[in-house]
């Protein structure tokens, strides 16, 4: 992940396994950093949701056929105006363009397939590597973003 050294940032790369305590810990660590950088409640909600969906995709789909102790790596890079998150799994990857649009009338009552839609809705960009087992998400801080009093 490219780093602009001219402005303050916090970053880390953390391997985690499919364990709720580990997932919650890394997500809350990220939310704490967002608060320190003054991101508002709606930004924290968006980033939290996108991270949850990306990790869920990685563990549920990417690691479906892998041992449960196989880690996924989450990297984050938080700047005052932007947050970059990379989630890399060890699975075979997938074609994101092959996921049916869950908002079409004929798909509305299908219980799965909404994680990627939510990631794309809340993030400025969501890009996969060629194989489809690494996703990079960028959140751009909106001009009216502010911490709750």
């Amino acid at each position: 992940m490219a780093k602009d050294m001219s402005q303050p940032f916090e970053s880390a790369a953390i391997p985690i396994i499919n364990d709720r305590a580990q997932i919650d810990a890394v997500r809350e660590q990220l939310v704490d950093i967002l608060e320190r950088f003054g991101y508002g409640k709606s930004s924290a909600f968006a980033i939290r949701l996108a991270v949850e969906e990306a990790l869920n995709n990685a563990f549920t789909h990417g690691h479906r056929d892998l041992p449960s102790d196989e880690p996924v790596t989450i990297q984050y890079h938080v700047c005052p105006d932007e947050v970059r998150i990379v989630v890399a799994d060890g699975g075979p990857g997938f074609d994101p363009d092959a996921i049916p649009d869950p908002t079409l009338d004929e798909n509305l009552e299908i219980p799965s397939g909404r994680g990627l839609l939510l990631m794309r809705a809340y993030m400025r960009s969501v890009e996969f590597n060629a194989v489809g087992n690494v996703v990079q998400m960028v959140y751009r801080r909106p001009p009216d973003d502010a911490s709750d009093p």
Partner: protein
Amino acid sequence: MPSDESRLRIKNQDGVTQIEFIDRNILDEANIQQIGDELAAIIDASSSPRLLISFANVDHLSSAALGTLITVNNKIKAKGGMLRLADIDPQIYEVFVITKLNRIFEIHDTVENAVSSFG
């Protein structure tokens, strides 16, 4: 952490089963599975289920939780029952709008409005 404890607070009044979530965050795969199983048991126990699910305590939910709600809605429809959702935080309501699930769920601002909608 999944457990034997219920993830739901349930009361039955005037033929409507009112349900609240215990958890503020409905994210954990095992908990979502448990919530789905508990709701399925409630639906199975009624010939024409009338369920009202309040989101008053909920701060965060994932697409997996939405999936469980869709399954619950499909089960209720299959039995000719009724499902209402209520008290959804604006940020979470936006998730329903993005996914267009506000088109398949009947959503009310308050539990009181949802109760009176059963007629």
